[in-house]
């Protein structure tokens, strides 16, 4: 699972040598297993606003161990900093410094989470400055944390309470092992929509979900994670990958649909299959994607076209079919897999980066079309993830790719899958048009 170097330096002699030589010491990340506690150790909630009090009450009602004041040298599972009423940059000092001394007490794989308002240009310059200040503050905190601890922020526009369903769902996601490789990121809860699941271990119970590109790698991990969370699965991949697809389908008790998503009728065939076999269609995960890397100087028509066609045009066509279908109306969810390449660019990947940036553009423009029917569309942008594809990268380049993030390691396919499962859940109904990076706060594209 974890790369060999990380295993080597995580214990015993290897750890001592790495420490002496000043080598990177990536931690073994805490990852979610069903039934486990949301977080081990008490949660310190700092902030003096009404929202902080309400949040503390809610977390107490979940039987979590909540502190409103730090007890020195008590190991903390998480620190939540509520900053929803900032009026000027000066307002940052008191709450920020109040948690400063507690950072040392954060347990391995602990969590640092802020709740604040987005600087959306609507307030005064002073308010905007304070709100934007949280951005730089949090991303820096994330880089200071060690031992697998992460820092992430939740942005709540005016009118969306800290205890709204999606704010709480996002908070649970960030607190849990599901967000192991999400670091230094903000998630905007745009509306008070959404509904927390009755069973937090089966947040997708009763849902029928389609996953494209499900035969291997991240797609297969998405299938396994959605199945674990209770979804019934339709797994799609090209006919030539049908044997791997069948194996995954049999493992997760789903149905295999061998289909090239680039076909004109792909959307309708997906809908028909889901409706006939499973009676409904709630979630579509656009995971299928290809790379045909070449420097632009050597790029030909077929390399450019095939990547753009599969990675974005096919998604657009399928979404058109979904939006036109009467069967995709009951709080539907679309989650697309983008890439940090689409944010930062990557040498030799002009076609791939264009397609993945296109995914993000598509998500932001499709959001209002889905919200009109109570649905959402979001994207997850993976950074360096340990897959068969990244295993083919030359060793030295791969090692650099792996270590250039705040967690000093590559993510696992399951980390991407967890973020997708979260965005597909009813709890995330108030999160729409967002792009969530799963990259361990990679330096590239930050």
């Amino acid at each position: 699972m974890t790369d060999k170097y990380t295993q080597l330096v995580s214990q015993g002699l290897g750890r001592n040598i790495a420490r002496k030589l000043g080598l990177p010491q990536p931690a073994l990340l805490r990852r979610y297993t069903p039934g486990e506690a949301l977080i081990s150790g008490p949660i310190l909630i700092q902030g003096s606003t009404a929202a902080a009090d309400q949040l503390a009450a809610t977390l107490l009602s979940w039987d979590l161990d909540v502190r409103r004041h730090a007890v020195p040298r008590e190991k903390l599972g998480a620190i939540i900093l509520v900053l929803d009423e900032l009026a000027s940059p000066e307002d940052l000092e008191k709450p920020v410094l109040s948690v400063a001394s507690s950072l040392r007490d954060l347990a391995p794989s602990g969590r640092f989470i802020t709740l604040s308002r987005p600087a959306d240009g609507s307030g005064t310059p002073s308010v905007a400055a304070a709100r934007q200040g949280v951005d730089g503050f949090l991303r820096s905190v994330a880089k200071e944390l060690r031992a697998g601890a992460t820092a992430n922020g939740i942005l709540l526009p005016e009118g969306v309470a800290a205890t709204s369903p999606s704010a709480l769902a996002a908070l649970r996601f960030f607190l849990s092992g599901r967000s192991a490789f999400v670091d230094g990121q903000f998630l905007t809860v745009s509306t008070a929509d959404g509904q927390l699941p009755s069973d937090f271990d089966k947040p997708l119970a009763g849902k029928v979900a389609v996953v494209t590109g499900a035969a291997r790698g991240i797609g297969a991990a998405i299938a396994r994670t959605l199945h674990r969370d209770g979804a019934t699965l339709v797994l799609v991949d090209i006919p030539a990958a049908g044997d791997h697809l069948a194996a995954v389908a049999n493992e997760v008790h789903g149905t295999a649909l061998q289909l090239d998503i680039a076909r004109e009728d792909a959307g309708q065939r997906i809908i028909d299959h889901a409706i006939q076999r499973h009676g409904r269609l709630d979630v579509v995960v656009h995971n299928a994607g290809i790379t045909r890397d070449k420097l632009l100087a050597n790029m030909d028509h077929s390399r450019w076209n095939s990547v753009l066609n599969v990675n974005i045009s096919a998604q657009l066509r399928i979404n058109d079919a979904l939006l036109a279908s009467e069967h995709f109306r009951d709080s539907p969810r679309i989650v697309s897999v983008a890439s940090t390449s689409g944010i930062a660019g990557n040498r030799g990947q002009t076609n791939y980066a264009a397609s993945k940036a296109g995914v993000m553009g598509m998500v932001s423009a499709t959001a209002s079309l889905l919200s009109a029917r109570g649905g959402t569309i979001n994207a997850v942008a993976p950074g360096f993830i340990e897959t068969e594809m990244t295993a083919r990268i030359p060793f030295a380049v791969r090692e650099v790719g792996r270590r250039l993030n705040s967690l000093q390691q590559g993510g696992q396919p399951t980390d991407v899958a967890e973020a997708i499962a979260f965005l597909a859940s009813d709890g995330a109904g108030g999160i729409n048009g967002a792009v969530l990076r799963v990259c361990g706060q990679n330096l590239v594209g930050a």
Partner: protein
Amino acid sequence: MSVDGQSVTGPQDSTDPAARGGAPALRRAVIVGGNRIPFARSGGAYTKSSNQDMLTAALDGLIARFGLQDERIGEVAAGAVLKHSRDFNLTREAVLGSALSPETPAYDLQQACATGLETVLGLANKIKLGQIDSGIAGGVDSASDAPIAVSEGLREVLLDLNRAKTLPQRLQVLSRLRPKDLAPDAPGTGEPRTGLSMGEHQALTTAQWNISRAAQDEIAYNSHRNLAAAYDAGFFDDLLTPYRGLSRDSNLRVDTTPEKLATLKPVFGKNLGAEATMTAGNSTPLTDGASTVLLASEAWADAHDLPKLASVVDGEAAAVDFVHGKDGLLMAPAFAVPRLLARNGLTLEDFDFFEIHEAFAATVLSTLAAWEDEEFGKSRLGLDGAFGIIDRAKLNVNGSSLAAGHPFAATGGRIAATLAKMLHAKGTVDGRPARGLISVCAAGGQGVVAILEAL
């Protein structure tokens, strides 16, 4: 009522108990769909795969396609023609290795090349009678991983050795062994009663019916062209699951032409006096592969939200006396089809698709020639004249064995699932359900034929 998770009340949608006294109204047996692995020329991609491996893979693909994981199927029936002694319970072992419920019963069947179609008919009949609600028919064969028997001499020595109790006894038994005993008995395609291979038998029939080389090559060319077009159209996307790196039948020649086929040298019938016309191009090669077909009662298919492509209307078997040369080895379907159609009040004109297994291109043509022959119709079929003519545009429209290959027992399942999908897509013709005819010839002078109807 259930014991240990298994229903003990019999089929869930059994016929009206009131009807049990007399003949119960028969239920429909429907084909839900099928799955096969691509067929591979023998000695190719599946050289290292056993019959059990391939049948399990074909089953697992079917299970994944229809979400049958942990499902208890009424019965699974399949078989192989070339079968190892270790494969005495081949189908059951494949079920145990698959994602189906281990409480699914299974049996093996062997009727040479008709094995696959016979399993379809057998399970369909059980469904019609209400004995089972669901079934998976299938077949598998490997000409690569064929069983090799030891010589009769070695076999006797080994058996005696096993019975010997003391070391001197054992040494005495071993001393009987001669070098020639060590040569294995490789399996052949020769008929035990005539010693002639299937190709040589067909060559006799080909000559008897005056089938031309050009007509055979045309059948072969159409087979490749039609199969390639079907692949390109995505027709096999939901009929086939890749296996061992193959996602298309390896025998398929996309770029073959009548001209190329015409250059091949004849391989069968070279000593007949007549012109030899059968080549490697218009004869099926030895092939490895497996196929499965999911059958069900309508109620079972509905309860599982599964499609219903076609119903299995009826089937018929026939055999001919090829030993004494009365008829050609592969001509039994020429008799089975007229009997089947007469029983169902149908003529050849009532069909929209014909799936005539291309054991050899000449087999198809000999059968058609017999049906078009007045003398044959009168003297052999007892009709007033010729049995009838087939519209060639309806014949093997998505390719058949010449292009796909022919792993003996797997051919029936390939054809049944393919035809069911074609019929479903066709829907109705002149207000009646589209209808298809399957004809499969088999070693031993046998043939099995069937009628499917669109749903």
